[in-house]
């Protein structure tokens, strides 16, 4: 499929990539080229070793201020963004906007303007509304970068890239891979970003598995094969990517109960045995044990779930440094490089 012909791709590309093909904002996998995604993954690879050094920091973003702007609860994403920024030597501020408050458009823009007035260089935004990060990116001052930490059902692009990073470390040849995404695709920003990233990196086959109530009608057009039968869908796959099932879906018109979901779509050792013997199991967290997967699988030898969390820091470091890198003026770049030489730290 021709990704770049899609109107949603073009819209996202215009906003997040500058005229010289560099990242201005990081909003969605859509709108990125394969070259740019590979560059992020390679940069992350060079950052992956940083935490193992005795001094866990590089000075790439020294003097920059990053604000985590979370309109929706998060532990993993917020913490790893915070750590990533700190390891790049940025000053970090975390703003938790209460999710219960009726914060609508006006106050969202007001919050943004107020923080902008404090000369913040980058915002990491998580919001319950699809398109929130795009909206903010189209209204910030030109020198500010926006990183999407998850918007509604739309996109969670750093999650998708840390997933790609994890897959690449285990199985470098994407063209040979069969990947299954299992569960609540309908409401999942993670699944949407994963599908785009897998397509962009030329994965052999993408399968999507779930009940009809949790699968949108138009999935095939995104280049995936749709399965409602878990056993058929898992046959000979190399990667199983489980999705989180939100509690409110478990007892509604979407699903009769969490228990029934587990019986049909929960990942157990028996079902996992249908995949290739060296298949890896992933989950974006937090896991509902006994709903999406059994503990034997979550803690078993094929699970790479905790590696995903670790890789999240390297990916977020890569995305942040590439975004702010493209913003730095010539003079800023010189000082940055100068300081690297003085401290003798190896940059990406």
């Amino acid at each position: 499929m021709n990704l770049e012909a899609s109107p949603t791709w073009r819209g996202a590309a215009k906003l997040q990539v500058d005229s010289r093909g560099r990242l201005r904002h990081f909003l969605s996998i859509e709108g990125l080229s394969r070259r740019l995604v590979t560059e992020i993954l390679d940069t992350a690879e060079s950052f992956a070793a940083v935490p193992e050094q005795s001094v866990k920091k590089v000075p790439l973003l020294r003097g920059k201020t990053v604000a985590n702007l979370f309109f929706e609860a998060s532990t993993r994403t917020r913490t790893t963004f915070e750590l990533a920024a700190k390891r790049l030597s940025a000053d970090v501020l975390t703003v938790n906007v209460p999710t219960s408050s009726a914060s609508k458009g006006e106050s969202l823009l007001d919050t943004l303007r107020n923080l902008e007035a404090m000369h913040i260089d980058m915002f990491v935004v998580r919001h319950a509304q699809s398109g929130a990060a795009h909206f903010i990116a189209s209204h910030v001052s030109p020198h500010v970068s926006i990183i999407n930490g998850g918007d509604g059902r739309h996109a969670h692009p750093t999650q998708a890239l840390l997933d790609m990073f994890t897959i690449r470390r285990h199985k470098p040849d994407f063209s040979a891979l069969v990947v299954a995404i299992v569960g609540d695709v309908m409401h999942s920003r993670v699944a949407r970003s994963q599908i785009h990233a897998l397509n962009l990196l030329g994965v052999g086959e993408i399968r999507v598995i779930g009940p009809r109530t949790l699968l949108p009608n138009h999935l095939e057009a995104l280049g995936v094969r749709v399965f409602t039968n878990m056993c058929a869908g898992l046959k000979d796959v190399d990667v199983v990517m489980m999705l989180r099932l939100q509690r409110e879906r478990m007892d509604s018109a979407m699903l009769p109960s969490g228990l029934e979901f587990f019986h049909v779509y929960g990942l157990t050792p028996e079902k996992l045995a249908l995949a290739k013997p060296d298949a890896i199991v992933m989950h974006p967290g937090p896991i509902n044990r006994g709903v999406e997967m059994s503990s034997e699988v979550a803690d078993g030898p094929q699970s790479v779930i905790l590696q995903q969390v670790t890789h999240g820091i390297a990916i977020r470091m890569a995305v942040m440094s590439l975004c702010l890198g493209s913003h730095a003026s010539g003079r800023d770049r010189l000082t940055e490089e100068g300081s690297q030489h003085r401290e003798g730290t190896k940059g990406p």
Partner: protein
Amino acid sequence: MIQLKRIRIRGGRVLDPSQRLDAMIDVCLADKRVVALGEAPDFEADEVIDASQWVVCPGLVDLRVYLREPGQEHKGTIASETAAAAAGGITTVCVPPDTVPIIDTPAVAELIKVRAGQSDKAWVLTLGALTKGLAGEQISEMAALAKAGCVGVSNGLRQIPNTLILRRAMEYAATFGLTVFLHPQDPWLAANGCAHEGLISEQLGLPGIPVAAETVAVARALVLAEQDGIRVHFTLLSAARSVEMVAEAQARGVPVTADVAMHQLHLTELDIANFNAECHVMPPLRSLRDRDILRLACSSGVVSAICSDHQPHEPDAKLAPFCQTEPGISGLETLLALGLRLVHQDVIDLPTLISRLTWQPASILNQPYGTLQVGARADVCIFDPYRRWTLDAARLVSRGHNTPFHGWELQGRVLHTLMEGKRVFDLDAPR
């Protein structure tokens, strides 16, 4: 009192579908009325408007216009929005009942009538509430509403969940000859959706409104209309399948009419691909195929009226993530030009377009507007069908500058609008 001028509109192409008129003739206006068509050598004019390069048609009739008064004056007022109507060549606007307070008592209908009389830029007709408070539970006092001047009844965007109440409301409205305006959308299927359910909403992660939300509601109302022989008007159809269902019912003699919003004939779901909140409308912009079938239906007459669905907003209403923005477009001033765009694209011919914008919407209301027959109200729109201009949202007369058509090159411009023989808009007059 100022003596009204006797006006001769000379030599224009007079298009009046109400009398199948398409000829280069004079139109003579006096005493608030059309007094003669043709040469009329005895008519002594105080003023002559040379229209020899232009089209002269009845003032346009717009079936769906939010004036925002009473209740939302920060978005627009009767004065500001009727001035915008005049700038769009529209002399008659029909307002839905979901003002604040709702038009479910004669007092609100009368208030609007008084305010409209004060600004005197367009005829303002009101639709009364079909159920009290639009709550969908108890039918409204329709006899009183009709007496207060309401020309039809509607439940606005709110649905009547109980089918029996819908049936009774339709029957009661028919008792007083009030046209029932239905905005067909099943509230459960539409849920919290804000975009057409399809590939684009899927990619953007926007909750979708399936076509079935509309067709289910159309089917329900059609079945009742047919069984009880009650006239129903569907407003703002958006889906090809609904149009097919209406066409099939019309062919069997069910008394049903329909309109579409002008923007549905130009935009599609593709226009929201970058989360453009100016394209957030309700019902949502649908697929290219839906748009093409709606265009065909306007040309064939299955859909007999095109409205602006004018919804002016303050800037903040559109400054939020897509689903949290308020739906709607400020559409009065682009209604005719966008219609002419369809003519220039050979989608529809000019007399048919004018018919969809004048006489046919007036017929749906069963009101004596949208015609230049001798003796009719002297409501006239004079336009240059070829003049090119670029829409600048900031220069709209409407208080709402929310339009996705900003920057569009349009062809065809309103030059003069007359209401009861009085000039209410002149393009070149200083504002």
